[in-house]
């Protein structure tokens, strides 16, 4: 490579590097605004504004979902397994809404510390599997969220189940 081309290459790479640093710093400064939602810890620390529209996200605590029998009212607890926040909502929940699954609620934080939700969105984890694998994981005492670590361990059970249903 001749000297002129080398110099040009270095200039271009330096410019791209500088732009990357600038973008990185801007994103770092804006990091709390880029987060889509507040976690229950942040809400407990008082970082979320009260009575303004916010999003809160976490897991739906197992056994916390209470449905009103006469209306669409539902209440549940969103947790990060450190702090909890109660959510009250009136409306239809998405199909993937389940206890122990991720959720993002759009609503306003009340002064008493619960959230009045206008919209409930279901989060999904990165695992996909057919129902028999999910059943085998659950039968072995794991949750489908443990797929990556535990799938091989329970794969024999899946095969046995498949063989027994065929017979």
């Amino acid at each position, binding site marked *: 490579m001749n000297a002129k*081309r080398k110099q040009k290459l270095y200039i271009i790479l330096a410019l791209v590097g500088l732009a990357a640093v600038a973008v990185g710093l801007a994103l770092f400064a804006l990091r709390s605004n*880029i987060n889509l939602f507040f976690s229950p810890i942040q809400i407990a620390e008082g970082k979320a504004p009260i009575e303004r529209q916010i999003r809160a996200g976490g897991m739906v605590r197992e056994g916390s979902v209470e449905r009103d029998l006469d209306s669409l009212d539902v209440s549940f607890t969103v947790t990060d397994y450190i702090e909890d926040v109660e959510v009250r909502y009136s409306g239809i929940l998405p199909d993937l809404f389940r206890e122990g699954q991720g959720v993002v609620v759009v609503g306003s934080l009340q002064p008493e510390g619960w959230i009045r939700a206008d919209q409930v969105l279901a989060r999904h984890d990165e695992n996909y599997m*057919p129902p028999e*694998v999910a059943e085998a994981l659950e039968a072995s005492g794991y949750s489908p969220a443990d797929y990556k670590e535990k799938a091989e361990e329970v794969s024999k059970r899946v095969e046995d189940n498949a063989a027994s249903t065929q017979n």
Partner: protein
Amino acid sequence: MWAFIHKLGSPKWFYAISARLLPWLWVAAVALIVTGSIWGLLYAPADYQQGNSFRIIYVHVPAAFLAQSVFVSMAAAGLVFMVWKIKVADMAAAMMAPLGACMTFVALFSGAVWGVPTWGTWWQWDARLTSMLILFFLYIGVIALRGAFTSRDAGARAASVLALVGVINIPIIKYSVDWWYTLHQTASFTFTSRPAMPAQMYVPLLLMVLGFYCFFIALTLTRTRTEILRREGSKRWVRQLVEGRL
């Protein structure tokens, strides 16, 4: 190796070498995409939670992979053009941009269609979705900037610079789901780690991803060949080639 790369930089050599590769690439692309689609849409099992809407993954993930890979390739070609003044690199970069924009649109659109039944919304301003939308605008910007100059060389240089600076967005897209709280889940399928799904689901996905890559290379080579004929129309070898065929 270096000699081969140098030869590729000459339009005439590029034209000759790509002619030998193209039939294989097109056959591989069509075979992989057809096999992957039929396998993924008809024979792969449905997901335990999402049922059949999970099958959108067989279009969404390969399109999102290409959207990012095409941009990186376009920027690399731009760098080669800027530093070494290789015209073929610029022709390839120009031919890649519309495909990348289409793939980004497909990823955004299939993601929105998938989001409605699973998340309960088709759009949220979450970091992954927003950075992908920015990628789409960058593609549009690269295409528009190239056309905005009367001199082809000035347009090519401006497009290369935008592509090189825009590459900063690629790691942001990739790591957005790890750096920030997002609605989009973390990656299920990467080339570096075990997929978060059983083989009967990821093998067709792998075929689709490979098929999309073959399609990208085949389409770029085919379009670059046409562009070579268009730009080098006054060269003797092109005239001989055309006259010989007529």
